[in-house]
C-alpha cells in the first residue's frame, strides 16, 4: 500500500495510524492487512500484557466459576454479599478496560476492529447478572471462532457461550411438559418457555427482521433451543450424566429442560426425539440462509465502506458469502476490490464512532508509546456512549453518522482533544488503582492519575493525513497546543 492508503486502512480496519503501524501497513496489501486481522492473533507490548495478566479476569474461567458461578463457594448462604457484588463489578470493569487496552495497543489492528465488529454483532451487556464474570471469556470465545474464518463458527461460539444464554434469558427457558418443569411445579414453582434468545437469533444474529419468518418460527426456535443453559455447582454431576447432559466449559445442554416434540422451522421439519443435534441443525440452517448472507454483507459494507453502500456490492458480497459457505474473508473480498472502496480510502467519509475517535486520537497523541491508562479510556468512552460490551440492548451499536453525530459528541471530542493536547489526559502510565465500578466510571467517578503523552504535531499530522485549506487556514494564530487540539478535533480527523 502507499502511505496514504495505509493510513486510510489503519483508520478503517484499525484504530488509527502511528509511525510504526504506518510503516508496517505499507508493506502489506489491503487484503493481506485484513486477512492477517482475521487469522493471526494480536501481539501487545509487554507492559500492557503484564497489566492484563495482573487483572482478576486473568484467572481461568473454571476457577472463577467454581467460586462465583451459581452455587459457587463464594455464594454460600452466610457469605458477605457486598464483597461478592464488588468482586463481580471488578470483573466486568476489568473486562471492558482490558478490551480497550488491547484494541488501542495491538500491533494487529485489523484483528481488533474485526473482533469488535463481531462482538457488537453478537452483542451482550457486561453488567447483566453473571455476564459480569463471563464477559472476558466471551471475548476470547469469539476471538477464537474468528480465526476459523466462518460465520457459523462465530454464531456457534456466541450461542454456546453461557454469557449469551444469560444475556438473552435462555438459561432458564424450559419446555412446559419436560421433567424439569414437572419437578418445578411439584415444588410450587413455575417453569416454561422464554422466547427472547430465539427472537434475537432470527432478527439480529442471522436472518434480519425483514426476512420471511413468522411469530410461529420464533416460538418453534424457542422450543428447539430449550435445554441450553449453564452449568452450576449445585447440579449433581452423576444425575447430569444419567440425564445425558452435555457440558462445554460452563455451557450446559440439559435434556431435562428440552422440548423433544416435533417442530417446524422456516419450512423445515424437525422430527421428534432430537436433543442437542437439532440445535446444531437449526444454527447451521440459519447461518447459511440467503437472508443471513445479505444481512451480514450489508452490515460489513456499512461499517467498512459507507452508511448507504451500493446495492450491487452488497449483492456481490452476499453471493461470495453463500458460495464460500459463510467465510468472512470471501465475503470481504468483493468489498476490498471494489472501486468505491479504493475511492473511499482517498476520501474517507464515515463519521468515526466514539471508540474509533478516542482510540485513534490517543494513538495520534502517544505515537508509538504504549497507552496504559485504561481507566482514562473507559471513563471517556462511557461518557461518549460507547464501550465494549456496554450496549444494553441486543442490537449493538450503530455505525451510521446519524447514530453518533450530535452536539454532545462534538463538545466532548473538543474537550478531549484539548485535554490531550495540553497533556492533562493521563494515558501513558498504568493506573495504580482497582478497575473500579463501571456504574461509577459511567458517572465520571474515577481517580485518573498518571502521565500524559507528549504530542508531537508532526506525528499528529501524519495520523490525520491531508487537511483542507479551510482547516489549515483556521489554525492560523493558534498556540502550538491549541493547534494540536484543533487538529485532533478537525473535520478530517472526525472521519475515517
Amino acid at each position, binding site marked *: 500500500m502507499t502511505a496514504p492508503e495505509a493510513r486510510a486502512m489503519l483508520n478503517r480496519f484499525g484504530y488509527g495510524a502511528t509511525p510504526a503501524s504506518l510503516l508496517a501497513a505499507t508493506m502489506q496489501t489491503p487484503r493481506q492487512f485484513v486477512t492477517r486481522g482475521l487469522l493471526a492473533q494480536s501481539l501487545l507490548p509487554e507492559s500492557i500484557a503484564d497489566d492484563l495478566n495482573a487483572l482478576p479476569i486473568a484467572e481461568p474461567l473454571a476457577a472463577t466459576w467454581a467460586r462465583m458461578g451459581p452455587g459457587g463457594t463464594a455464594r454460600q448462604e452466610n457469605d458477605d454479599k457486598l464483597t461478592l457484588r464488588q468482586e463481580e463489578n471488578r470483573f466486568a470493569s476489568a473486562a471492558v478496560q482490558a478490551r480497550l487496552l488491547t484494541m488501542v495497543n495491538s500491533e494487529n489492528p485489523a484483528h481488533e476492529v474485526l473482533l469488535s465488529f463481531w462482538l457488537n454483532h453478537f452483542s451482550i451487556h457486561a453488567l447483566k447478572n453473571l455476564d459480569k464474570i463471563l464477559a472476558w471469556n466471551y471475548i476470547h470465545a469469539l476471538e477464537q471462532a474468528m480465526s476459523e474464518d466462518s460465520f457459523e463458527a462465530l454464531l456457534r461460539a456466541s450461542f454456546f457461550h453461557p454469557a449469551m444464554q444469560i444475556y438473552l434469558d435462555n438459561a432458564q427457558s424450559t419446555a412446559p411438559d419436560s421433567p424439569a418443569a414437572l419437578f418445578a411445579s411439584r415444588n410450587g414453582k413455575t417453569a416454561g418457555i422464554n422466547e427472547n434468545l430465539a427472537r434475537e437469533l432470527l432478527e439480529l444474529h442471522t436472518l434480519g427482521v425483514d426476512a420471511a419468518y413468522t411469530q410461529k418460527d420464533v416460538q418453534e426456535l424457542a422450543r428447539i433451543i430449550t435445554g441450553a443453559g449453564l452449568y452450576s455447582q449445585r447440579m449433581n454431576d452423576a444425575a447430569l450424566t444419567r440425564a445425558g447432559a452435555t457440558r462445554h466449559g460452563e455451557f450446559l445442554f440439559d435434556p431435562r429442560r428440552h422440548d423433544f416434540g416435533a417442530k417446524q422451522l422456516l419450512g423445515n421439519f424437525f422430527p421428534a426425539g432430537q436433543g442437542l443435534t437439532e440445535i446444531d441443525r437449526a444454527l447451521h440452517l440459519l447461518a447459511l440462509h440467503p437472508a443471513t448472507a445479505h444481512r451480514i454483507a450489508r452490515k460489513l459494507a456499512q461499517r467498512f465502506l459507507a452508511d448507504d453502500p451500493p446495492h450491487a456490492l452488497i449483492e456481490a458480497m452476499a453471493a461470495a458469502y453463500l458460495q464460500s459457505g459463510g467465510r468472512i474473508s470471501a465475503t470481504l473480498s468483493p468489498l476490498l476490490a471494489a472501486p468505491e472502496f479504493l475511492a473511499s480510502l482517498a476520501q474517507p467519509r464515515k463519521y468515526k464512532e466514539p471508540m474509533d475517535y478516542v482510540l485513534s486520537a490517543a494513538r495520534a497523541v502517544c505515537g508509538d508509546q504504549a497507552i496504559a491508562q485504561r481507566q482514562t479510556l473507559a471513563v471517556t468512552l462511557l461518557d461518549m456512549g460507547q464501550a465494549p460490551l456496554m450496549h444494553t440492548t441486543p442490537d449493538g451499536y450503530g455505525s451510521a453518522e*446519524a447514530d453518533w453525530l450530535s452536539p454532545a459528541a462534538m463538545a466532548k471530542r473538543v474537550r478531549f482533544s484539548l485535554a490531550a493536547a495540553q497533556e492533562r489526559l493521563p494515558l501513558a502510565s498504568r493506573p495504580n488503582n482497582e478497575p473500579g465500578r463501571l456504574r461509577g466510571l459511567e458517572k465520571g467517578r474515577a481517580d485518573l492519575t498518571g502521565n500524559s503523552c507528549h504530542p508531537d504535531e508532526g506525528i499528529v499530522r501524519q495520523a490525520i493525513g491531508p487537511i483542507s485549506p479551510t482547516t489549515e487556514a483556521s489554525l492560523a494564530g493558534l498556540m502550538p497546543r491549541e493547534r494540536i487540539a484543533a487538529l485532533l478535533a478537525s473535520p478530517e480527523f472526525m472521519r475515517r
Partner: protein
Amino acid sequence: MERRRFLQLATTGCVATGLMPITAMSVETRIVHPARLIMIFLRGGLDGLFAIAPVADPRLAELRPTLARTALEKGMPLGNSGFAAHPAATLFADWYREGQLAFAPCAGTTDRSRSHFQAQDLFELGSGAITGGSGFLGRAAGVIEPNRRSVAFTREVPLCLRGGDSEPEVAPLSGSGLKIPEGNLRNALLAAHRGQASGRALEQAIATEEEIVAAMGMDAQAARGAPGIAGFPRIAETMGRMLRANQRIALSFVDFGGLDTHAGEDGVLTRVLLALTSALQALRQTLGTEEWARTRVVLMSEFGRTARENGTKGTDHGHGGLFLVAGGNVAGGRMLGDFPGLGDNVLHDRRDLPVLADWRDLLAACLRASFDLSEPALNRVFPGRPGRTYSV
C-alpha cells in the same frame, strides 16, 4: 439562529436581574399558544398490564400468577375503570382521581414484527413506514408556530426529531455535557467545521449549553442526572426549569431503556415505576401550577408485552400497550379507547393485547388539543393515520 440568540440573551439577562418571569413573559408575547408537549418514550416494551393492571378482569390472576399478585392485592384503583395502578405507581391513580391523567390500555402501532428496533422506528417515524428520514416530532415542529421549536433531552438526536425543517436541538442532561471552552480554539473549530453537519452540531452545543446554564442559575453541573431511568427524577427537574425559562420549546422528547422484562420482571419494573413516577412528580412541581396547566406529558413504549407471563417470571414481546397522557388541563380521569378483556378469543394472536387505539391518532389528539392544529397540519405530521378522534 437570530431568534434563538435573542431569546438566550433575554433569559440570561433575566437570571442576572432576578426578573425572569416578567421579562420572559414580555419576550413570549408573540407566542399565541404557549402550550407544550413532552414525549417520554420508554424503549424495550413496557408491560402496561403490570403498571396499570385490569384487576377487575377475572382472567388476570390466571394469566399472570406471579406478576399480577401485587396489583391484585395492593393496587390503587383508577376510579371505576376496572384498572388499578401498581403500588410503585400510585401517582397514576392520584392524578386520575384529580382528572389530570387519562390512559389507553390497548394503544400501539401497526407493527407486526414484534421487533423492538423495527417497532421503535415505526413509532418514531409516525408515517406508517419502517424506514424514512423524518420523525413525527421533527414534522410537528414544522407545523406549529414558526418561533417554537423541539428539543430532545437525550445524548444523540433521536429518529423522532430528525428530518424536520430545522436542525434538531439536543440537551443531554446526563453525562459531561456540552461545554466547549471559549477562545481561539473554539473559533478555529467553528471555522474549520462551518457548513458541515459537524459544524452545525458544534454551534448547537454552544447555544444549548448557554441555555442550560441560564435555566439552572449558572450551575450546569447540578443539572445533570445519572444515566438511565434512575437519573430521571433529577433530569425531570432540570427539564422543568428549562421549559419554564424557554417558552420557545413547544415539543420535548426524552427516552429511557431497560423495559425489556423477559425475566424477573417484578423487581425491574417496580424500580422503573418508582423512578418514573417520582420524575413526573418532580416535573409537575418544577413547572408549577400555571405551567403545568399548559403541559401535556405523553408516555408510551414501542409495544406492550404478552398477556400471559412466560416461564421465567417475565413477559415476551407483545402488541397493544399502555398510552398515558397527563397534565393540568388534560381531559383526565378517563380511559381512552376500548379494553376488550383478556379472553383468548380477543387477544391478538391469542397472546397479546390488540391495538385498539392507533398511536398516531392518540398523538394527533394531543397535538390538536395543545396547539390547536388543523386537520391538514396533523395529516402532514401523521400521514395515513386512521383518523379516530380522542378527547385529551
